[in-house]
């Protein structure tokens, strides 16, 4: 009988020689789920924008899926807010802004000069980083847009409905005629959401809507975003990776290189972006290794 030979290396030979993070690339097959968008509420085609002679964003092409939450993430200055503002032409208010490309809301190119920006902003509402209620009563804040639009229906119902959709009704129903500015920060932000909802929009843009709020108020807004996505299309800019991961269905990662022009680096299902991003730069950003 032969003696079986069992060799024992003095030290295991699989000790890693180098642990370069760069070699931890996410190459190869990623999750199988398709990320094609068949029902787009908004479609951007090669959007570029200049402030004066400085280009801020370059050739952004992407579709925003209807009745979903889409997050825009990326380091400060990469053009997230600029791109968000393109979607309701808020940049028009800034002199010296020039844009190229096309931006379709359903079948209409909203950059077309024939489009009325005021009407566009009714359909594509916006909520800002800092809650900005008007110095008016809660009621008037919500009714404001409808009044401007010459709404002829029942204002009490309209106000109640919008406040209910914004998950604020129960907290303010007894103080509808006190100032909106007397509410807490989180309540003010929901008031601003109610104000946007009251004019019956299709899309709601949110630019860092929770960055001025505490965690509990933040969670309420996040829950609200998920609820609203049943009936509205939501695009949210956030610096909070966990927020993007929690609330959004899709995530777009933007980045500006040395030329300081913000471009789309990667766009996909949020689950894919946060578990197995395809691009090294996305990986580095969401794992906090740069930016």
């Amino acid at each position: 009988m032969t003696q079986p030979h069992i060799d024992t290396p003095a030290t295991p030979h699989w000790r890693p020689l180098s642990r370069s993070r760069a070699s931890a690339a996410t190459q190869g097959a990623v999750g199988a789920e398709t990320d094609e968008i068949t029902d787009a509420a908004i479609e951007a085609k090669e959007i570029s924008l200049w402030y004066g002679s400085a280009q801020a964003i370059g050739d952004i092409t992407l579709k925003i899926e209807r009745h979903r939450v889409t997050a825009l993430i990326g380091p400060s200055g990469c053009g997230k807010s600029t791109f968000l503002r393109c979607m309701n032409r808020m940049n028009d208010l800034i002199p010296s802004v020039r844009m190229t490309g096309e931006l379709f809301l359903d079948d209409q190119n909203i950059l077309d000069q024939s489009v009325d920006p005021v009407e566009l902003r009714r359909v594509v509402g916006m909520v800002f980083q800092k809650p900005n209620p008007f110095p008016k009563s809660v009621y008037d804040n919500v009714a404001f847009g409808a009044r401007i639009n010459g709404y002829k229906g029942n204002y009490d119902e309209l106000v109640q409905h919008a406040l209910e959709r914004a998950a604020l009704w129960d907290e303010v129903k007894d103080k509808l005629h006190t100032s909106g500015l007397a509410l807490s920060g989180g309540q003010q932000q929901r008031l601003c959401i109610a104000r946007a909802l009251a004019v019956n929009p299709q899309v709601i843009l949110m630019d860092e809507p929770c960055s001025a709020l505490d965690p509990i108020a933040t969670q309420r807004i996040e829950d609200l975003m998920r609820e609203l996505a049943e009936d509205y299309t939501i695009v949210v800019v956030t610096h909070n990776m966990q927020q993007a991961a929690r609330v959004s269905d899709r995530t777009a990662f933007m980045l500006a290189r040395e030329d300081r022009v913000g471009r789309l680096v990667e766009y996909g299902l949020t689950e894919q972006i946060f578990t197995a991003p395809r691009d090294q730069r996305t990986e580095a950003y969401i794992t906090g290794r740069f930016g």
Partner: protein
Amino acid sequence: MTLTRFNRELTVLEADVLELGAMVDRQIDRAMRALVDRDIPLARAVIRDDGELNRARFHLDNVCLSLLAQNAPYAGDLRLILAVLGIVTELERAGDHAEGIGRIVVLIAGAPPAAPLDELAEMARRARRMLSDALDAFARRDPELAYRVGRDDDGVDALYDRAYRTLVDAMIARPSAVEGCTRLLWVSHNLERIADRSTNIAERVVFLVSGTLPQMNVSSH
């Protein structure tokens, strides 16, 4: 690129996994040596040292848990921690199989082996090779090598079938060898399981690199 505390902790975690892998490999080596040399004290040492492996595994589980809770990691960091949680479980089980061999040695080493040990030794050699390749693939983020581990498992399965035949034939030929051969059959089963565990580790490596968990382990056993 700044190396944050979290990055450093991940690096340490990775090194600890490889350390645990080295401990498991040593256990398999010693268990097989105890079998071949009929070395009961060595077999007892293998059984005793399994406790250390278990402790190391629970320690790493806890490290993963707190890394997850404290850092809410994403992407490659998240996949690394999930992969490690899987890998340490497999390593601990592979260690249990080495311990199992040690226990069999204690039972049978009083007498000469009931059948030749060549096939078992070859199974052990290949299973250890698979384990070392799987850990190497982990350290180097090498999916090709990981897939090779999956393919190598077929070879161990074939050897297992052969060892089974050999041992059954020996029992038929020599009824007095039934007990000893049955114990050796258990040894071969433990070795086959170690190869399966190594394949599972290789699957975690592919997950770590790609984000998809492949199904390599379609072993017939």
